[in-house]
């Protein structure tokens, strides 16, 4: 291993090796991912693009430890996750992975601060201070105790970004982060994401928005479950 390769391995946050995912459906089986190799490094923003049905969401779910591959291996910070119990996978998600969804998925009954500290709700200690700081960082210092229905789409997505960061994750996984936003607001979110990756977080954004690819270091094209390269 050359020093260069070693440095790269150390900074690899999440890696898929030969990952295949098949779904059994109505007699036949559908291959969503076919022998996918993929890695995201610290501080890197990767866009995964492709037509709908190409397996982007499946790939994101496998990366996020929400779904298990049929074959192949997933490594989180150099550790294989194959043998983890559901409870250990849950802990791994909370400790290392931040999620941002297309339709924000904030809890409507909670305020912005409460939504941001939700991942820590059942942990000892109070993350309110950190949640407040994160909201201030994304420019929502004046919306701390607003509930989601009092926020605009862009504001909701920024709350979701703050929530994804509350546990200082190694990787941020974003599923169409700008999908429900207008261009101006989308740009604002992508600036935030860029800033987050500059802080050392690896970012994977699944999208078919060309705007997103302008902000990424690398674009991976997925067609029919196969990585087609840039």
């Amino acid at each position, binding site marked *: 291993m050359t020093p260069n390769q070693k440095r790269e391995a150390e900074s690899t946050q999440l890696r898929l090796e030969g990952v295949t995912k098949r779904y059994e459906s109505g007699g036949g089986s559908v291959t969503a991912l076919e022998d996918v190799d993929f890695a995201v490094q610290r501080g890197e923003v990767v866009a995964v693009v492709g037509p709908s049905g190409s397996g982007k969401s499946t790939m994101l779910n496998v990366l996020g430890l*929400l779904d298990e591959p049929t074959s192949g291996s997933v490594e989180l910070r150099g550790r294989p996750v194959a043998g983890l119990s559901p409870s250990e996978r849950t802990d791994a998600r909370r400790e290392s992975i931040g999620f941002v969804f297309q339709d924000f998925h904030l809890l409507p009954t909670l305020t912005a601060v409460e939504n941001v500290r*939700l991942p820590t709700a059942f942990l000892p200690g109070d993350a309110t201070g950190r949640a407040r700081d994160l909201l201030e960082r994304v420019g929502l210092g004046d919306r701390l105790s607003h509930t989601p229905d009092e926020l605009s789409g862009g504001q909701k997505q920024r709350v979701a970004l703050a929530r994804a960061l509350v546990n200082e994750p190694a990787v941020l996984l974003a599923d169409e982060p700008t999908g429900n936003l207008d261009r101006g607001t989308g740009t604002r979110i992508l600036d935030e994401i860029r800033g987050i990756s500059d802080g050392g977080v690896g970012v994977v954004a699944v999208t078919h928005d060309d705007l997103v690819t302008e902000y990424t270091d690398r674009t991976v094209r997925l067609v029919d479950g196969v990585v087609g390269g840039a």
Partner: protein
Amino acid sequence: MRSTDERFPALTLAVRNLSRQRVRAGLAALGIVIGVFAVVTLGLLGNALSLAATEELGGLGNQVIVSPAEESGAETLETRDLAAIQRSADGRGTVVPLKVTGGTVTANGGRTVAQVYGTDRPQALFGEGDGSVPAYHRQGAIVGAEVAAELSLRRGSTVRVEGNEYRVVALLPEIESISPLQPDSAVVLPSEEFAAPGFSQVVVRADSAADARAVADEVESRLNGRQQRVSVFSLRSVVDQISEFFGLLNGFLLAIAGVSLVVACVSIFNVMLMTVSERRGEIGVLRAVGIHRSQVLRVLLVEASLLGVVGGAVGALLGTAAVVVTATQTDLPLWAVLQPGNVVVPLGAFAFGVLVALVGGLYPAYRAAWEPPVEALRG
């Protein structure tokens, strides 16, 4: 709010979730309110009725009345019969020999026909009344409430019974409980005032129901061995049957009330099922951001239990209040409702209400918490 949140995150989340669908949560809790209310009112009323009835009948069950058997042809008990009864009742109660006849009573220009009892120990038989009924009766007449009212008698009045004049030394209180004697319409004289020497009845006031049974059995075996000399009358078995009836009635009432709690359970089940299917996505997010299945389960079970806690508390309070109000408005004595032992009823009903809600929430909560997050997020 900060500190409760930190300590009971499940409680905070559950309260927020319930407050989102107030009407629905209220209706689900109402089911529990009705169920618990029914259990509390029927349970308390049943208990109070049974207590009140036992109290009324208690004295009756403790009495054994011995009189000459019809087959013997005798009108009175002999001295040796009396002695045998005395020995049987020794240490188990008080023996009161009684002479009974009927007679005309006149006073203040009025006349009436009354039972005339002859006994030396009126207090043992008729109670203390207002304290004026003497333990031993040597002279004068003690007058029952009805007779006293009819002839306008007071203590110190003069009354004429079958031609003899007596001074009224005491009035018997009106009798509220059931009794084989009829003291209200009676005049009680010292037994010496009767011409006949023998006693027509012996009343044994036993110390307890068990003593009454023992006395009755022993009198039977002592006196009715070879021939039927006396008839022994005890209402013990009647009292037992009445108690048994109240036990059955209570069980039946509680079963009816229980049915309404089962219905409440179904309604909680239904509401929780609706709730979790509406919140599938949210629950998926919780799981994605690192909340464990058991923690999601806890939030949902706290939600269901809260419906039970609120509904159960309201139902128990309303039910108790309703029974207390009923007691003050009817003949049901309040003491029978406010027995310390009755606390079990509202507390038990409350606990049952919470349990029912918890059971109703169990399956929906389990199903939601164990659903793979990928599927929940998909929608």
